[in-house]
């Protein structure tokens, strides 16, 4: 009987450990962890979008400063996030125009910053005019312009289409035109890939004095 106590104790220990193991819901714990990690990445993405708007405030009213600051902040963010194994991609488009007089031709200036990767093709279509760029490397910047005549306040679409990793992406966003006003519009096509993939398109409009 004294020797059998070892076997009885073994059975008790094994039974207790099995009971503990089966009472733990592993799937639920793993799901909770993934959900928490995802919510942190959602917070990071949300903060990044808000910060891009804050950059506009700090460089207020000087177009080249606004563009340089936005591009610098995007590059800085990409670098920091990369060290955390999070990939930030972005196509930043800046559209701006000087004071509009009714029925007089106005120039809509467009500058872009490619932080997506190598783009085979990038097209902008506005007011039936198309401007194309090809073979754009990462961090490439370029500018173009469109002519337009405005008779009243209106929102006009700027269509963007690009070919990236053999896939074609097309979307448009509205440029608000206001008579007697100068405006700067910053548009960001953003994606963040870490534990999860997030993408969003945001635009911010400020009046230039």
């Amino acid at each position: 009987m004294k020797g059998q106590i070892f076997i009885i104790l073994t059975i008790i220990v094994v039974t207790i450990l099995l009971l503990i193991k089966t009472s733990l819901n592993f799937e639920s714990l793993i799901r909770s962890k993934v959900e928490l990690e995802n919510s942190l990445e959602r917070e990071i993405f949300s903060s990044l979008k808000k910060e891009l708007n804050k950059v506009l405030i700090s460089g207020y009213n000087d177009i080249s400063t606004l563009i340089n600051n936005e591009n610098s902040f995007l590059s800085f963010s990409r670098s920091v996030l990369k060290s955390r194994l999070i990939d930030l991609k972005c196509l930043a488009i800046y559209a701006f125009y000087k004071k509009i007089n009714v029925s007089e031709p106005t120039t809509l200036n467009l500058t872009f910053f490619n932080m997506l990767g190598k783009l085979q093709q990038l097209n902008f279509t506005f007011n039936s005019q198309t401007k194309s760029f090809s073979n754009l490397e990462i961090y490439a910047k370029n500018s173009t312009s469109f002519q337009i005549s405005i008779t009243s306040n209106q929102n006009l679409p700027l269509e963007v289409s690009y070919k990236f990793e053999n896939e074609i992406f097309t979307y448009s966003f509205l440029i608000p035109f206001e008579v007697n006003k100068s405006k700067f519009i910053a548009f960001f096509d953003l994606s963040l890939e870490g534990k999860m993939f997030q993408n969003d398109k945001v635009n911010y409009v400020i009046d230039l004095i």
Partner: protein
Amino acid sequence: MLRILEAVISIITLLTFFFGYFLAFPSIPSLESINWKLQTYNLLKTLDEKGMLRNFILQNRSTTLKNILKTYLGTKNLEVVICETQCNLPEIESEKLTSIFYLISGNSTHFSPKQILVYRW
């Protein structure tokens, strides 16, 4: 003699079970690290929304920020580093070391991208 045999059988059964137990099943995921990261990130965000974070970062007042975070998070094992992209990492030896970052672009008058790194162990 029989007693020794029974003891050996018990030890072999236990060892076999333990190996199976720890190798065949996945380890229990720890939520402590990710919970702490979220807690710290949300605190930094709240401090930022209340206008307390940016100027401290821009003035490089890491000690002040460290004390504020220690108070709110209720821990002494905390280190704060303010830097741009190249950061001097503190020498902390702990298996439980974890870190979180928060990015700022500057304040309303000054553009100066920086990150604050908070380490906890």
